[in-house]
């Protein structure tokens, strides 16, 4: 039997949505700094990008703390055994009207593909963007003022990798937003992420 469950805690929702806003804002300002679009003007884009970057870094620190202290980090352990079934569902099963191969529960909020993707996000994409972003931020130095930092790494490499990371992240956002529509109803997942409550099948293991 389905029942309304409080799936996404207050911090989780705050973290998710503020991160989404920051990432989109960083993408806008970042691609302006890169010269791809014109929005705020280069000077303001740089300043905004820096402020947003620091806010995001702060948020990341909080979310890491939250994940560790609540044990929620376990959600991202991918169950590789069910990965194939999940892939089969998205590429075949769902067109045949088959049910989800995995069940969403409080302990298992993420399906195996989600878990793997978010793990990749957290262990590859975010570190790539954060590390190159920090290198970028502290790259230029005031030589005569003995603040020489990391100028040995060519700026172009840092910038290229940061740009590549940005493209990957945008691609993730597109697919991620689309995948939210694959819930019980097209808006069910977004509604859950907004209110925290979602109708779930009863967790038989509890």
């Amino acid at each position, binding site marked *: 039997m389905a029942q309304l469950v409080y799936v996404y805690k207050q911090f989780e929702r705050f973290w998710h949505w503020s991160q989404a806003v920051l990432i989109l804002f960083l993408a806008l300002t970042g691609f302006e700094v890169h*010269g791809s679009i014109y929005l705020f003007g280069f000077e303001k884009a740089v300043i905004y990008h820096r402020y947003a970057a620091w806010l995001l870094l702060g948020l990341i620190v909080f979310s890491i703390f939250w994940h560790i202290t609540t044990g929620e980090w376990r959600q991202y352990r991918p169950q590789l055994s069910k990965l194939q079934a999940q892939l089969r569902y998205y590429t075949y099963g769902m*067109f045949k009207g088959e049910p989800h191969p995995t069940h969403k529960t409080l302990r298992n909020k993420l399906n195996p593909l989600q878990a793997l993707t978010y793990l990749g996000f957290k262990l590859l994409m975010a570190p790539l963007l954060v590390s190159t972003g920090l290198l970028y931020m502290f790259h230029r130095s005031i030589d*005569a003022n003995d603040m020489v930092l990391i100028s040995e790494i060519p700026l172009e490499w840092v910038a290229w990798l940061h740009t590549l990371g940005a493209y990957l992240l945008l691609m993730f956002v597109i697919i991620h937003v*689309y995948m939210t529509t694959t819930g019980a109803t097209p808006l069910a997942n977004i509604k859950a992420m907004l209110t925290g409550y979602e109708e779930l099948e009863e967790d038989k293991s509890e």
Partner: protein
Amino acid sequence: MKKIVLPIALVLVLFVMAVHLFHRPPMPNLTQLQLQQTYSVKPIASVDHTRFEELQKEFATPQEVTEACIACHNERHKEVMASNHWNWERISYVEGRGIERMGKQNVLNNFCIGTNSNQQSCARCHIGFGMSNNRFDFENARNVDCMVCHDHSEEYIKGASTAGYPDRSVNLSRVAQSVGRPGNINCGACHFYGGGGNNVKHGDLEDALLTADRSVDVHMAANGINMTCVDCHTAENHRMKGTLYSVSSTHVNRLSCEECHTTTPHNDRMLDVHTGRIACQTCHIPTYAKENPTKMAWRWSEAGQLKDGQPFSEVDSMGREIYLSIKGSFEWATHVEPEYYWFNGHATHYILGDKVDSIPLQVNRLLGIARDRESKIIPVKVHRGDQIYDPNTEMLIQPKLWSEAKGDSAFWQDLDWDAAAAAGMQEAGLPYSGEYSFIPTEMYWPVNHMVAPKGESLTCAECHTREGGRLAGLNDFYLPGRDKHAGIHVLGRLLLLGAILGVLVHALLRFVSALRNNKMKSEDIQ
């Protein structure tokens, strides 16, 4: 009620915190205030030379004035005689050459070419008397011209083509009694008018600086801090601080903005981090030749033309001289945007007798690349033209230009290149094959003066822009906002496009299958 009040209060608190966090009230720039205070107080002369008996007499020759100066300042002449202003050369170690004596005596320029065989005229800007040829006695202290730099009567003027002697009209007694700390016109007499007229050479040094307002030059503005040349170009023991790379070649005794303004003058870290690799002048001198035009090109190859058998001159609609039979054709410009180059404080020069190693030939080359930590981007006036050249010896030719009268092989009298080349090269002790042509030449003048008010300095996007930025020509480094990696760009766009297409196709399939499944369901019910 509580449910609404609490979130609103929280949002307000966050808003106030954000305002507090991100708002930076304008901070007083203490360094700058201190400098303004320092230079507000103008130096006062410690003695009144009119009251010295030694100077209250008629001087028959300018050398007598020098003797009177030395009688009291009895060691100063030695300092002067050790200076570049006197020797017209300095000793420097130049990579690839070794120890070299270089200066106006042997380095060529892109204007009147060189001093050799033309000393009688060029010496108008030598701080000595009687340099009429290359046998001038640099050891004779009597020939030091103290007055040209220290005159305050504004009466002293060197004669045209009098080997550095003052004009006959000058009242030496009055000049001698007026002397003091050099004023702007003392320096400007040579440094504004070099190359045959106001602002011809530098582009950023001209007589508009004598009456400048802040929009022309924030330092020398009469309605601003009203500084003089020697406030920055100090001269401890007559050794002027500052080097110009038309004749200097090493990073020695250089004068920089940072000495007063420090490397962190902006109260803004984002701007301050630029000072490591961008010279202050780059952003703060957006244009030069702001008042009067400067010469951008001089083509000697066109000299010598005659109209009705006579030499002639032509001016353009603005009254600027664009052709002179004795000199060739010129191009002038005002409000010029500089070109930008990496520069590490070292330069090489074409020295009379060198083989030409590139066409166009750079008579001076500013050294520096992005990879070199010591290099900074500086603004440069590049003067382009052409010069007479010997295709057989592959040397630039030093022509004899000036002479008192016709028939002495001087080009400015006889308009005969062959004779002028032969005479000039003979005087310089160099071979001339008897054949000549012209090759394009370039000269690089770093722009250092005419600093604009801060509101007029370059903005970020003038360099950080995809196309047409100020640094569009400087491509050996990654400039954010301008550069991109074509491969990553294509890959990134493919990724995005792929994601969008994949999502659309998937959605379409879902839609179609949903329709079909619904139909099957409704058929089941029936």
